[in-house]
């Protein structure tokens, strides 16, 4: 089946007790259960349902990304006058207010990064499903990129948490988080889980 680098005998390692045994899974993987003769754990070449799980989590993140952008993430009030702001309205306000650097940072952290993750993960999952052999090295690089930028995706959530904790001047000025930031946090977590569920070896499983 695989025309991988090793063309020798097909062997498989038990994921639990690491017993190496002959790979008799054939094409039945995912349908028939093959168990380890020593510990009884289910044997599999790739994590079963990894693509499916990654895909499901990615879909959930994508769904939640809509309310995260539509609903307000932060409520600011200054001298008793204030209003809710969504992520996009905040970016626009900062951009128009002249703070283009901050606007750019927020844009990258809360729009560019999640969208990149959606696209990359979607691409990886789609190609893995089709077992495409297209640009495999580049796709591996993309996967590493997704893992790396995952650390920085929580920037928005941190900003809202810190600001609402610090800016508490009662009537003068007040900042409160709103429900949108919760959705945004859920989006970030779900995309990270999705990236974790994806087995990068699938990139190399192309036919």
């Amino acid at each position, binding site marked *: 089946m695989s025309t991988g680098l090793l063309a020798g005998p097909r062997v498989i390692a038990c994921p639990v007790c690491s017993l190496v045994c002959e790979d008799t899974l054939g094409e039945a993987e995912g349908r028939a259960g*093959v168990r380890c003769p020593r510990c009884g754990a289910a044997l599999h070449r790739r994590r079963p349902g990894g693509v499916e799980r990654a895909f499901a*989590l990615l879909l959930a*993140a994508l769904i939640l990304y809509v309310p995260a952008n539509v609903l307000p993430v932060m409520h600011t009030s200054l001298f008793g*006058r204030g209003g809710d702001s969504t992520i996009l309205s905040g970016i626009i306000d900062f951009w128009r207010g002249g703070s283009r650097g901050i606007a750019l940072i927020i844009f990258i952290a809360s729009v560019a990064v999640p969208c990149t993750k959606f696209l990359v993960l979607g691409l990886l999952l789609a190609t893995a499903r089709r077992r495409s052999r297209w640009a495999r090295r580049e796709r591996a690089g993309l996967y590493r990129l997704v893992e790396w930028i995952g650390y920085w995706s929580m920037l928005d959530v941190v900003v809202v948490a810190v600001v609402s904790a610090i800016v508490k001047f009662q009537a003068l000025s007040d900042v409160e988080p709103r429900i949108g930031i919760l959705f945004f946090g859920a989006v970030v977590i779900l995309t990270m889980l999705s990236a974790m569920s994806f087995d990068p070896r699938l990139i190399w499983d192309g036919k």
Partner: protein
Amino acid sequence: MNTVSESMPEPVVARRRWHLSLIWLVPAVAALVGISMLVHAWLAVGPEISISFHTAAGLEAGKTPVKYKDVTVGMVSGIRLSEDGSKVVVTVSLDAAAENLARVDTRFWVVRPRIGTRGVSGVDTLLSGAYIGVDRGSSQEVSRSFIGLETPPSVYGGAPGRSFALRAEDLGSLDIGSPVYFRRVQVGHVVSYQLDEGGENVRLQIFIDAPHDRLVSSNTRFWNASGVDVSLGADGFRLRTQSIATLVSGGIAFATPEHDPGGPVPENTPFTLAADQTAAMAPPDGPAQYLRMYFDLPLRGLSLGAPVLFSGIDVGKVVSTNLDYDPATRRFRTTVGITVYPHRLEGVLKYFKRSDIDPRTQIAHFLAEMVEHGLRGQVRSANLLTGQLYVSIEHVPNAPKVAFDESAHPLTMPTASGSLDRLEEEIAGIVAKINQIPFASIGKNLDAALAHLDVTLRNVDSSLRRVDETLAQLKDARLVPEAVEVLRQAQQAFGSAQRTLDTVDGALADDSPLRGDLGRALREVERAARSLRALTDLLGRHPESLLRGRPEDPPSDMERER
């Protein structure tokens, strides 16, 4: 390779139980939550309404809230000019919960800081910025476009209390929000005012807060309490005002006569707003009766509105004065029209009241009877300095009989030449007498007398000068030597007198022998006096001893001892 594969154990084949992974629950839940949130947010958006204002000062799209009872119920979503550019149309997206606020009679206004004579409002908006206030209407009809008020309404919907309508001659210094006082306590305020259709009156709408609204009864009198009422009467100087605030911004006061409180009234009952308290508390005048009078004398000083007095009581006023020509006598005469309020003579008229005829005929009958007995109209002087006149209706003794036409319209009141003519005659007489005084000859005599006086005074002056000269000569004359001699002798005499007195003084001194002798002599005298008293005692008791000598008394104690 083969050995390895042969020694390797065969995996056990088992059937999988789950085909569909549980992981798909995650996007399902995410979708559910996301959709429910979006649906909730979508449902929370209420209707979008548009309000037109004259200006959008302080309003900002996306920032300015709409508040009802200080609760934010919506947000200004857009501000644009109206099509003709005369107004500003503010689009407001209301919350779904506030959907029932958008009724036909709901009022919107912009709350801004305002400073007026009645205080400061909207100070909180200095920092927070303006917002749009809402007062919910009571109508069931829903509307989506409104005309915003330029000033906040003075009465909010659902406020406890009642409103009443007032009819006033003019607005005075009243304004929307002017206070309404009862016993100097503010119980309400003016809500609105407008001219009526004909422009003859001002119609005011006032609102009395509960529970004071029950103080308004069918007989309540309202009056304009604006400004100061200064009066100078027999009881002295009096200044009346409701409060300092009414001096500036005006106000309305009301009271109910205690003797006739009247019954409760429904909302929006019309009342009349009197100019002042006296006019308000006066009994109602009732229908006016127009009367006409002809006067043969010029009536300069009889102004419109001059009082008409009947036996000293104000019963009406002059409403017209016109010049008329009498072709019979070929003379001009003045027609004076007066209105009389018969209700002011209630106490008198009740004796003449007859129920079988209508009021007008009744008055004609009354007048005919009174004219028969000498009732006449006269013009009198109210003030000699300003020449103001008033009309007086009085019984004139020995008045010539005149015919009174009861059916004439209008009724014509016969007149008599009043005291005004007589006064003029008297003044003319005084002036004539003054004219007869021979001021010229008096002056001439006075002049001659003064000339004589001048001459006399001049003689006196020269006499006095002569006396003065005599006195000066006396001062200059020398004293005669005899007089000097007399004075020297007198001096000597005084010197010897002084010495004599010194001697006397020495003789009377404490340690002088004269004084010791004198003391002894006095003691002797005292002793002699005592003997004399014993003698008189003896004589008093035994007067016969003068003749018979000392009686043979039983011997006294002293004698017995002896």
